[in-house]
């Protein structure tokens, strides 16, 4: 009874005490534990439940969804991990547990660093650029697949395409998808499909894939050689590596990333039902287009046969007649106007011409001419009369001056015979000198005898 008094706890009290004790110990708070995962379960609430074990011991662990969503990997049975957590007690089961805060696959730290570095380097090179991503062909005839021929990946792709798109044919290039040889094997497989496409039959699209796994298992798809062969591949590439949460460099360099191999098979081709529907739709469109065309033609014909041109051709003519009238009016206005004004000016000119009275003008002109002629004649006459008078006066004068006239009156003129010099003085003539005497009716040659000259000679001598 005494025992009862001093130390009887309820289970709840005891459990609470134990928990208090554990939680008070700083070594159980934020401790790091390494071990292997087993009995892994993801509850529908997304809390993770598993057992962490090593060769000798095990401890139950729980990771609540709020923490689990930050995980970069999908934990699974057999995976070695390092985790950080706190020890506490789950009251209901009386179980102490590890409440996990954070977890990392053990031994992959170095890989993770390598992954990050390569990713950053290739990204800086532009290999992940969105503008490098090619469109996948709409209706691939030949689909190349690089994967293991024995894995679930090929079966998933095959069954998906068989169901959805049996029009294609698959060419598999077998490759190791994990282990040290895998990267080289993947590169060879991709190369062989590129060569096949060039030399044998064209391949329209490539799927490179493998199932889910740890970072180590997926590692070949993070190697630079694989990244390079995919980034230079002339055929569009779909990457289907691991599960939804797995991200590899292969995903980054591919044209399209598929979450799973099945998703990849769905991405590369449309569903056959979709094609059948599209075909039916095109058929219907062609039919209705032709139907419409025929109906349209028929209606046009009906419309034409109903138009007034055919039913009332005269009305049609009338319209045109009216048009002609109108146009004529236009022509008159445009062309007639200048013609009319020219015509008016012409008739005015003619009228003026008539008004001039040519005959009377002619008479007038003629009398004018007569007048002028008369005046001219008078002037000439007057000129002539005056000139004649003058001429007569001159003639009288000339007559008077004519020496012959003087000679006729009995005068004569004496020239020296030799010198033909007029003799006007006795002093000019010596004795015996011969003289020529000009009479009115002729000449005589005489000889001077001297002495018997008239007194006049003397008188003259006197002078």
């Amino acid at each position, binding site marked *: 009874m005494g025992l009862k008094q001093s130390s009887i706890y309820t289970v709840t009290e005891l459990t609470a005490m134990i928990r208090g004790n554990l939680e008070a110990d700083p070594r159980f708070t934020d401790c790091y534990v390494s071990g292997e995962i087993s009995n892994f379960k993801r509850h529908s609430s997304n809390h993770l439940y598993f057992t962490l074990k090593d060769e000798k011991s095990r401890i139950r662990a729980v990771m609540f969804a709020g923490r689990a969503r930050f995980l970069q990997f999908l934990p699974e049975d057999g995976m070695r991990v390092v985790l950080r957590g706190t020890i506490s007690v789950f009251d209901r089961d009386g179980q102490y547990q590890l409440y996990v805060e954070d977890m990392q696959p053990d031994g992959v730290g170095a890989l993770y660093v390598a992954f990050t570095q390569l990713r950053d380097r290739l990204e800086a090179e532009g290999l992940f650029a969105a503008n490098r991503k090619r469109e996948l*062909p*709409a*209706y691939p*005839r030949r689909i190349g697949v690089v994967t293991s*021929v*024995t894995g679930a990946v*090929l*079966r998933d792709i*095959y*069954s998906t*395409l*068989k169901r959805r*798109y*049996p*029009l*294609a*044919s*698959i*060419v*598999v*290039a*077998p490759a190791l998808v994990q282990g040290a040889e895998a990267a080289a094997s993947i590169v*060879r497989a991709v190369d*062989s*499909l590129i*060569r*096949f496409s060039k*030399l*044998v039959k064209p391949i329209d699209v490539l799927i490179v894939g493998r199932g889910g796994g740890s970072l180590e298992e997926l590692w070949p798809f993070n190697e630079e050689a694989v990244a390079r062969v995919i980034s230079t591949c002339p055929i569009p590439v779909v990457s289907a590596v691991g599960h939804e949460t797995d991200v590899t460099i292969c995903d980054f360099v591919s044209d399209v990333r598929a979450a799973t191999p099945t998703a990849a098979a769905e991405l590369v081709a449309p569903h*056959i039902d979709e*094609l*059948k529907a*599209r*075909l039916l739709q*095109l*058929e219907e*469109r*062609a*039919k209705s*287009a*032709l139907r*419409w*065309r*025929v109906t*349209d*033609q028929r209606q046009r014909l009906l419309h034409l046969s109903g138009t007034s041109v055919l039913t009332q051709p005269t009305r049609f003519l009338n319209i045109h007649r009216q048009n002609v009238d109108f146009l004529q009016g236009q022509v008159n206005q445009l062309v007639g106007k200048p013609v009319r004004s020219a015509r008016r000016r012409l008739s005015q000119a003619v009228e003026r011409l008539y008004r001039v009275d040519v005959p009377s003008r002619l008479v007038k002109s003629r009398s004018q001419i007569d007048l002028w002629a008369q005046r001219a004649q008078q002037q000439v006459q007057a000129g002539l009369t005056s000139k004649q008078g003058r001429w007569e006066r001159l003639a009288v004068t000339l007559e008077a001056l004519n020496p012959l006239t003087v000679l006729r009156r009995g005068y004569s003129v004496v020239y020296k015979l030799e010198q033909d010099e007029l003799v006007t003085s006795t002093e000019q003539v010596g004795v015996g000198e011969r003289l020529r005497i000009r009479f009115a009716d002729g000449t005589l040659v005489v000889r001077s005898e001297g002495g018997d000259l008239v007194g006049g000679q003397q008188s003259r001598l006197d002078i």
Partner: protein
Amino acid sequence: MLADSNQDLTFEQAMKRLEEIVRKLESGELSLTDSIEQYKEAMQLVQLSRMQLDRAELEIEQLVVNSQGDMKLEPVPGAEFQTQSASRPKEETE
């Protein structure tokens, strides 16, 4: 119009040609005679494509490259990869 040459078209080419014809028919730019010609070709293409869809059977082969680099296509091992026509006799025996 090109019925004979259309026989060799791939599904993609047939669909493309069909889409082109339907577009032309719908545009109303064709004469009635041409429309009818194009319509005939469209129906041939529909038939051809539908036949391709109905008869389609997924094929799978693996590419094997020997040490000389020679390429060869071989069947993929595994019953699930046998084509329907190849596996049909088996089904009948069951």
